[in-house]
């Protein structure tokens, strides 16, 4: 496991989200966003085992999924800012970033991409390649009927798809104890899908299980991982987390994967100066691209009616 690479990617995702948060507060961004700080290690770790041709479907909380699938940071930030230089020329925004080159697809309907992820996996099997699909979803999405249909479909058709449920214990303000009466990974198992639980932000366990599961998924067997994790910020931009207990928050802040990896790097060959340098480099990079985007502006015109229908032959 390349800890440094994982650490840097986590910090990059964090820096982009913190920048976005800052720009929101300055009134420079329109709309809303759902921050993934605290959970971003999941796609970062999982992506260590993915290839470019593997597809990822994402959610409303998708910044980490996107950057882990190696979307270009500047083009991605541009999209969040509603800039025509963004991946979707500003039509998509935070919840609907997609890039065919990266095989990355997101949508703001909770769990809505899960049935489509199954279809992407179906096509891979049909074409007899060994690409996999990773479908991210939340604990809330796990209560949507179409997600359950999709689990059953993937199992019945034996499709090469890995479902990853980022169980952060809340769907907006609603705790899972009000919405689930059985373990999430057990639900997937009931459909005949090999499942695993990764508790407590255990990124090392996730790394191992993801490696094994992705290898087996490539052979055409669906898998499911429930990762218990926590979002550090509110559900979306302005949420104050009034429904969360402070001691619960503290418990999870102490389990922040970025901090844990940092300690590990420090106890290896890295010094605090090395770490600070990495942080500064990443922050400077994100500052620079955001300033370029804001200062240089863009006057690209977008034809509102173009591409409603795909006119390619």
């Amino acid at each position, binding site marked *: 496991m390349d800890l440094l690479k994982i650490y840097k990617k986590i910090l990059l995702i964090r820096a982009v989200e913190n920048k976005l948060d800052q720009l929101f507060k300055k009134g420079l961004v329109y709309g809303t966003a759902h921050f993934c700080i605290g959970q971003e290690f999941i796609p970062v770790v999982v992506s260590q085992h993915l290839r470019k041709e593997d*597809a990822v479907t994402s959610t409303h909380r998708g910044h980490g999924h996107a950057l882990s699938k190696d979307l270009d940071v500047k083009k991605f930030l541009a999209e969040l800012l509603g800039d025509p230089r963004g991946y*979707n*020329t500003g*039509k*998509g925004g935070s919840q*609907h970033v*997609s*890039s*065919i080159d990266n095989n990355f*697809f997101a*949508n*703001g*309907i909770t769990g*809505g*991409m*899960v*049935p*489509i*992820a*199954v*279809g*992407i*996996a*179906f*096509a*891979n099997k*049909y*074409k007899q390649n060994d690409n996999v699909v990773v479908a991210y979803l939340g604990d809330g999405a796990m209560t949507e*009927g*179409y997600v359950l*249909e*999709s689990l*059953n*479909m993937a199992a*019945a*058709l034996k499709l090469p798809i890995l479902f990853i449920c980022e169980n952060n214990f809340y769907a907006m303000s609603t705790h899972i104890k009000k919405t689930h009466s059985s373990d999430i990974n057990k639900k997937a198992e009931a459909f005949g899908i090999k499942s695993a639980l990764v508790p407590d932000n255990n990124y090392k366990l996730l790394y191992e299980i993801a490696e094994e599961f992705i290898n087996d998924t490539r052979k055409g067997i669906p898998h499911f991982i429930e990762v218990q994790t926590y979002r550090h910020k509110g559900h979306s931009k302005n949420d104050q987390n009034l429904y969360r207990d402070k001691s619960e928050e503290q418990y999870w802040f102490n389990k922040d994967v970025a901090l844990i990896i940092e300690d590990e790097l420090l106890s290896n060959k890295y010094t605090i100066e090395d770490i600070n340098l990495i942080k500064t480099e990443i922050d400077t990079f994100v500052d620079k691209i955001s300033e370029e985007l804001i200062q240089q502006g863009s006057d690209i015109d977008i034809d509102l009616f*173009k*591409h*409603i*229908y*795909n*006119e*390619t*032959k």
Partner: protein
Amino acid sequence: MIKTYAQAIKDTLDEELMNDPNLFLFGEDIGVYGGCFGATKGLQEKYGNKRVIDSPMSEQAIAGLGIGAALNGLRPVIEIMFMDFITLIYDQILNHASIFSYLSNGEMKVPLVIRVPAGGGRGYGATHSKSLWSALMNIPGIKIIAPSNTREVSGLLRAAIKDNNPVIFVEHKSLYQIKDDVENAEDIIPIGKAKIVKEGNDLLLISFSKMVLDCLEVANKLENEGISIEVLDLRTVKPLDIETIKNSIDKIGKVIVVEEGFPQSGIAAEIIAQINEVCFYSLDGPIKRICTLEIPLPCSPKLENMAIPSKERIENEIRSMLNE
């Protein structure tokens, strides 16, 4: 060559399965059973269960599978058993299939055909008889085709399959068994083009799907009395061919729109609104619409017949408009 509407659909699917290895069929009971109306019968036997696939009874996942497979380079033709169930996949159409091309600026495409039977006249009752095209009409990015006859169903289906966008292909339950000679039928019929199926001078009937047949019967009957009715078959409901409608109205100022959906916010309502915008001054008077009564569709033949536009109703409305 004489075929039924169902056979024409099956033969087209057969040819396209043969032509394009990336095309596959997916839906509930479309294999050995052949679909509820026999439109896929024998295809699984011929192409195997990797290309003609019996799906679980999970409409949303069926739609999602079609969308995902289309995004990933295949050409799925999925089937939803009855149009009443289109509501179950509404989210997948509205919030997913229809937005990918637009948001990706044309980099992504969803060449997906959703075959679905609509319509009443079979006594299937409130949950298996509806014609819900208007629920789909205001979704940007999709197309809706509703063939009215056996000679054209094949050309329209082939156009739907070749199109690179999500197409809802609405078949009609009462048409499946209608036979016609399909010799020299058009191989492919362009989407978005209406057709004048009978010319006339006194009054224009605009319709689509099975109601075109009823309109034609009434028009032919009245022809014997010297009443000259023009009948326009939309063929494609969306995008709507308002040009062809306008051309007829510029010639004939009396218009009735006949459709099997409900009246409020229906396709007829939309057509009337668009006519108002593009050729109001060519009209002789108010446009009428004839639609299914706005009630949950009853099952008994007597009650169902009262609810769905009948030939008598069409004839009476024509006479009363001509006598005004």
